């Protein structure tokens, strides 16, 4: 059955008339053309489809779009600033070998962003624990771990710089 669903995706409001059975991952990719979100396992295990729903990380492959009517969704396309500047997590993945083939990367980056939003200075163990549900066949994970560590450090430095700018 076709139903009206309202979603705010990356800050933009969308009013969609879609079948009730439409999964969020398909809605993002096909209705909205946001193909950055990938689908891997389709059963909630691999993390390729990770997006943020009202700030919490979620598997869009097992989420009905209709079930999150009215929610704010953030996808990989929503991370860079308006001037095109990459989010510190994205930059860190490029600078520190966080990906090879790239299929898992949007999910890894979204999971890492969710972590740093809630815990800006995680320990390595906390990062490993948080990211355990984002699988990668290529990197062996060390590059990913390193990228998240460096992203946290970079955010800290920029926060520090902002604080001292504000103080001046």
């Amino acid at each position, binding site marked *: 059955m076709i139903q009206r669903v309202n979603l705010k995706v990356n800050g933009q409001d969308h009013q969609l008339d879609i079948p009730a*059975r439409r999964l969020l991952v398909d809605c993002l990719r096909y209705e909205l053309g946001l193909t950055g979100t990938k689908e891997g396992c389709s059963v*909630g295990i691999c993390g390729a489809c990770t997006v943020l729903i009202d700030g919490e990380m979620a598997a869009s492959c097992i989420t*009905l779009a209709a079930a999150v009517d009215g929610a704010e969704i953030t996808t990989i396309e929503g991370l860079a600033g308006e001037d095109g500047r990459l989010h510190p997590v994205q930059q860190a993945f490029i600078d520190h070998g966080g990906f090879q083939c790239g299929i898992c990367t949007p999910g890894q980056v979204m999971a890492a962003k969710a972590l740093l939003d809630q815990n800006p200075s995680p320990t390595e163990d906390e990062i490993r624990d948080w990211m355990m549900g984002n699988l990668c066949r290529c990197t062996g994970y060390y590059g990913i771990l390193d990228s998240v560590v460096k992203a946290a450090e970079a955010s800290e430095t920029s926060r520090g710089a902002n604080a001292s700018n504000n103080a001046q």
Partner: protein
Amino acid sequence: MIDFEFHSPTTLEEAFDLLEQYGEDARVIAGGTALVLQMKQRFAQPGHVIGLRKIPGLNSIAIEAMGSNGDTGSVRIGALCTQRSIEYSEIIGQKLPLVAETFRRVATPRIRSMATIGGGLVHGDPNQDPPPTLIALGASAVLTSSRGQRVVPVAELFLDYFETDLRPGEILTSVVVPQAPPGSGAAYLKFLPRTADDYATVSVAAVVTAGEDNMCRDVRIVLGSVGVTPVHASDAEDSLRGRPLNEENIRACAAMVSDLVDPLDDYRGSAAYKREMAQVFTRRAIQQAMAAMSPEKNKD
């Protein structure tokens, strides 16, 4: 997935009306982590799916009045609380550390951000982590319908494989979990020989209360992944209650568990292996629960 209609009631009354109207053809959905998978695989094919997300008041965590003896209380957890919100709740961390620890063992942080305590219980999967702990602590599920409320011990909620005592028209609205009695220690062990995000091969929750002279005043032992429902090992408990908590008695108690469980052969291990592991992990859970008995912890 077959086609269906999605409903988003904003009050419980509205949800009850929808359940009444569509009967067997309706299913409620909370986090959706179990139901959407079942719908994808066509194990579930509801014509009407009723979302609970927009009903306010189902996701709070609050301390209930103290128990009759004045020193332990309970915590009421709203059915829509996500597993992650329970894991991180300050109230849960203080009053029910075993519950926080148990929810932390479920799946991955992403699934825990979506899945709810109510959805997990009604799903009725005997391989889940929370049920053994909730049963060992003596938790109850509050089932609400247009006809009123039933309070069912979580131990009695599970009837069979993926089958619960939830009756037509009912919605699980909260779970009430008593604090462990003073002088007790608790542990939840999840045996994971494969990967950290897997379901348990065998899991055990144990709550041990010691009396004078290291006597076992009370003990609760509940196992997961070893039968069609969580298994409450009451015969094994009886063998330890009233006896000294020494190595010999603990071993004897744990040995009884092998005969109380009825595991399946699957890719996590043969039934015989799981029987053996049920015994080993019960012994360890009792020992760990005893090690967790610190007088400091039991003060509040």
